[in-house]
């Protein structure tokens, strides 16, 4: 029942997004590209630590999307959340593609449950970020900046320090590029909202 309601709400929000304007196309184009890369085959085996990281980043992308869905509902006139939320769904798909490719069991994570996380630390992040973003539109946009900076930091760590094979790095580089675009969008929206 709840799951179905959530799905309907998400679909409604996503449909609304489709008319949000051409700017969103640029925002998620990089992540579409990222998702496409996951279909290549590879024989490389990942270490347990690398697999843990893939699993974590998959869920971190869900965190970003879920926070934007929730804040987008609070501030429906602010299109930035709607457009970036759609892009984050592509990021989740790309990260999920990597997990599947490397045999990581993600069955425990229910993507349709917005605001519900397997990892307690991500649940803590979600709760606090939504609480903070509920204060005002500017606070909500600041939350967006925080999330994108967090993503960029973690993706950079994964790209540079963990010895991933080229296909994983390629996807993560595209996700990071998408996060830089999101960051720019949030900073632009802050400038507009502050003026």
């Amino acid at each position: 029942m709840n799951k179905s309601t959530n799905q309907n709400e998400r679909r409604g929000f996503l449909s609304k997004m489709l008319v949000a304007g051409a700017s969103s196309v640029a925002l998620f184009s990089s992540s579409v590209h990222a998702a496409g890369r996951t279909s290549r085959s590879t024989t490389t085996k990942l270490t347990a630590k690398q697999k843990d990281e893939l699993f974590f980043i998959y869920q971190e992308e869900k965190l970003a999307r879920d926070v934007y869905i929730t804040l987008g509902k609070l501030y429906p006139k602010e299109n930035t959340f709607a457009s970036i939320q759609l892009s984050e769904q592509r990021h989740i798909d790309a990260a999920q593609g990597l997990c599947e490719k490397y045999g990581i069991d993600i069955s425990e994570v229910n993507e349709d449950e917005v605001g519900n996380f397997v990892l307690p630390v991500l649940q803590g992040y979600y709760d606090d970020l939504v609480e903070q973003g509920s204060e005002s539109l500017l606070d909500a946009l600041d939350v967006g900046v925080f999330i994108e900076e967090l993503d960029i930091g973690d993706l950079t760590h994964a790209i540079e320090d963990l010895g991933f094979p080229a296909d994983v790095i390629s996807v993560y580089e595209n996700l990071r590029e998408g996060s830089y675009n999101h960051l720019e969008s949030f900073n632009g929206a802050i400038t507009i909202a502050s003026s």
Partner: protein
Amino acid sequence: MTEEPSEIISKYYHALYNGDLSAVKDLMTEKSYMMTLESFGLRLSFRDGEFKSLLKEIEDSPESLEKVESLLSQEIISRNKAPKIKITKCEPNGSERETVYYTEDGKVKKLYFSKEDSGWKINYYAGRPIPQSYFSSIKKWLISILPSF
């Protein structure tokens, strides 16, 4: 004597909400501890730009880490929380990992543990399900049918 994950959870919550971050640090892997500081420091970092800058440096600067621990410890104490923890289930995930299910003031939660040199530690990255080997699957099946003989 090595403490079991279920015992560590109670210690973790007690230490955390008493602001005893050095005790919290001992119960977690280093990476998870840093993430805990970042997560719990979120509220303060939105209110205090200086704290936000310090929080970004904790992995590279011991001085920033020390300041963050001190400021955050006071902030957590001021929350005045003492959640009731009730362990509901402990589930092995391979031989070196365990998931503990529990409630925090009635809210369902879980924490992951990994077996380190110094014993069980809270490890946020240890949640990935570990595929069971053929041998351990057979062993589990044998154990499950033993009482029927």
